[in-house]
């Protein structure tokens, strides 16, 4: 082969001075973290942990991605760590709340109508104007309160998927659950929250 291919040096990015990181990437990292954990102080902690890890690990940066992408990658791992720790704690001391909203109680359990709505558990009519800012705000406040009363894990599942619009598979990754497991938890969370909103927001 006499033809020599022209060689292009692979584009490598280099890191900027760590002193500039907070200014340059602080908002982006915070925005990302906030979307995943929904809480300002937790998001700030994650940004700090991320930048610290980046500082200590900057010798390993090979420049295959941009500085921003590299930092977001570290942050993603911190988010997973956060949920792993949070998951461990909720299993230890989080009793199942809303015990009265029993999963199967919504439906008739025996006879020819098995599986139909129990007459007292049928969904009520909601008269909500989704375009009214006042109702939007009321909805949000009640949703937050209902989420606080919900089992921690179910609240996380609902927040990630139905509030923060994170892809299904991505939620599985972040929470380290199987797709089947997530499906069951989402169903349960939606059901309990709908019920909670119906009795506290709509019914109020």
């Amino acid at each position, binding site marked *: 082969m006499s033809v020599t291919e022209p060689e292009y040096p692979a584009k490598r990015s280099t890191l900027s001075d760590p002193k500039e990181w907070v200014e340059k990437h602080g908002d982006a990292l915070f925005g990302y973290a906030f979307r995943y954990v929904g809480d300002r102080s937790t*998001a700030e902690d994650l940004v700090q942990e991320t930048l610290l890890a980046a500082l200590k690990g900057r010798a390993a940066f090979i420049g295959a991605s941009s500085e921003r992408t590299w930092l977001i990658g570290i942050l993603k791992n911190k988010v997973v760590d956060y949920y792993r720790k949070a998951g461990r704690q909720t299993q230890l001391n989080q009793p199942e709340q809303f015990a009265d909203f029993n999963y199967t109680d919504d439906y008739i359990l025996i006879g020819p109508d098995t599986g139909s709505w129990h007459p007292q558990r049928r969904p009520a009519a909601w008269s909500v104007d989704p375009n009214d800012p006042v109702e939007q705000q009321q909805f949000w406040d009640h949703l937050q309160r209902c989420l606080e009363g919900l089992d921690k894990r179910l609240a996380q599942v609902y927040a990630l998927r139905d509030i923060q619009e994170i892809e299904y598979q991505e939620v599985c990754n972040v929470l380290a659950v199987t797709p089947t497991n997530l499906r069951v938890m989402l169903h349960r969370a939606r059901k309990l929250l709908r019920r909670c909103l119906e009795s506290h927001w709509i019914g109020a």
Partner: protein
Amino acid sequence: MMMIMRLMNRMLPSCKEVSRLTSQAMDESLPWTKRLGLRMHLRMCIWCRRNAEQLQLMRNLARGQALSRNEQARLSSDARKRIAKFLEQNDEKS
């Protein structure tokens, strides 16, 4: 007629099953048999239709609110200073 009704009932998913499918359909596309059963049941059953509409409404409202909240999410100047200082201290040590 009774026979047909009974057969339909046997084939169509129950409300309990429809509730499950309604939630699932919010995240993934269902196999066509399930989708058909879900659609036919929803057409006939007002309770399940309400349930489905309300879950969708909740999601739309929640996502709408979150979107505007996320846009305003900025690192506060306090946090900015605190983190910068923290990094500086740890940089000296390393």
